[in-house]
């Protein structure tokens, strides 16, 4: 099995790639969401004070990843919130999740950039030979 779950960014010339690793597909999705927050600010600075529920559905896991990230982008913008803790449940390409976070405070979070959308570029959701999961795509900033 892989190391504990983690996230990372991967380079894209104009934008940023977000990548989540996990022992399960759910964990990989949760980590990809953390990577998304990290495009904007250090997730450590975001207190998981308030929880919201969201859900989405797509024909395959890759489109579902894009939907999941786009749902979070939508919630961030319309609630003016940032999120730092996630709990994802997956069943037959239906995703339901809890996301914990707090109101965006510009003076404290110093948001580097707002995210326009998650894209299908470098989109990949796959189980690696060691059994762990990877979920990634480029986000447009």
């Amino acid at each position, binding site marked *: 099995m892989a190391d504990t779950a983690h996230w990372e960014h991967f380079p894209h010339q104009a934008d940023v790639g977000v990548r989540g690793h996990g022992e399960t597909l759910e964990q990989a999705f949760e980590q990809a969401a953390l990577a998304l927050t990290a495009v904007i600010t250090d997730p450590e600075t975001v207190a998981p004070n308030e929880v919201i529920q969201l859900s989405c559905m797509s024909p395959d896991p890759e*489109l579902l990843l*894009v939907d999941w990230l786009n749902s979070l982008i*939508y919630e961030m913008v319309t609630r*003016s919130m940032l999120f730092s803790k996630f709990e994802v449940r997956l069943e037959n390409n239906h995703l339901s999740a809890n996301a914990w976070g707090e109101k965006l405070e510009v003076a404290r979070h110093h948001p*580097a*950039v707002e995210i326009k959308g998650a894209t*299908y570029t470098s989109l990949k959701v796959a189980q690696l030979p060691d059994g762990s999961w990877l979920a990634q795509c480029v986000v447009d900033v």
Partner: protein
Amino acid sequence: MDLALFERKSEYEWHIRPFGKMHVPGVIFASETLLREMDAKVYEQVTNVAMLPGIVGASWAMPDAHWGYGFPIGGVAAFNADAGGVVSAGGVGFDISCGVRTLHTGLHIDDINAVKIRLADALYHTIPAGMGSTGAIRLDAAGMDAMLKGGARWAVEHGYGNAADLERIEEGGCMSGADPAQVSDQAKKRQRDEMGTLGSGNHYLEVQLVTEVYAPEIASAFDVKEGDVVVSIHCGSRGLGHQIGTEFLKRMVLAAPGYGIELPDRELACAPINSPVGNDYLGAMRAAINCALANRQVLTHLTRQVFEKVLPQARLPLLYDVSHNTCKVEEHTVDGKKRKLYVHRKGATRAFGPGHHDLPKALRDFGQPVLIGGSMGTASYILAGTEQGMQLAYGSACHGAGRAMSRHQALRNWSGRKVVDDLEGHGILIRSPSMRGVAEEAPGAYKDVSAVVDAADQAGLARKVARVVPLICIKG
């Protein structure tokens, strides 16, 4: 990029002969150096676009082309609806109608120097910039629909700017065919707090100085001369456009197989122009164009208010407003015949040549102003559309410098504070809520805009008119 992949048609024009499923050639306009440094992904994306149904002419890439989403950024492609042509959400991009407008000020550099800091601070406090910033306008459902139908015209009717502004905007400031009913409630909700905001990333408001004039006759028609101070605003359709892009990308990916469209890459998601999905997208996308035009118009009004307080003698008429992420219906000559085409420009600027009926009378003999943004430490350029450009790539030119490195790499190379201090040493005042954002947008993270503009000029796409450098930059 491997130059052996191309057939060199002229010093600045590189052709890819159609192969496989390509319907038309691929053409990249660039100097040898720019092409060599260009991401190999551009080649792949240019050839992929050439495979889409109903494409006409060629799949073009401008000198600033880089790896985009399906279409290269800096890509131009035209489609014939009657030949099964498609419209593509990826070919327009997420930030629909992102663009640049430049305002005159009537001021000279000497008028600015004494109040530069005050002006920078006043602009920073008045122009909502960066994530989480909100505008002062709240639209109800009817107001939102009226804005989406009316564009800059709506803004002028509501006291933001004046009628003279409208003739200096593509489509007279109002994109026809907009259908607010095709814009989802989510997209409208995302826009709720964002009317009159600048956004972040590469968006900016700059006070600039004209440092050089290359084509005096055109510059004179554009009312631009050395020593003049101008203001440029770069931003787009905000959350509304982003949400429309997101939703239709998915709809088109899911619908494409049903239309018998084989996508070489999911990001090329498209639908026939003559199809329900294509039609819905065009209605929504045009509404987003109007949103962007209205947004830049509101920001113009806010800018004028600031100048009125700090430099009351200034007058800020609009030189021109260009959009660089659009799909527009235009008439172009194909094999000697006039045809109505759906021209996608993704990170490319419309650059109509002299005599075009969409140009305002005062500019018609000289070609459309083409406004090219650079990075915050370098320069921007004003060009003019040419007759040759109408033939080369259906009246299209580059749109900016293009990034030379990822945000990731830029963060490793620079600290935001140091970038701000260094630029201040060069007389450029930066105001931004995010030092990390400034580091990611450091001038060194961008390609040399001068090389891009020179290539566009030499290729004949558009003619170089003037160079401007930043004095003040408000960054989101």
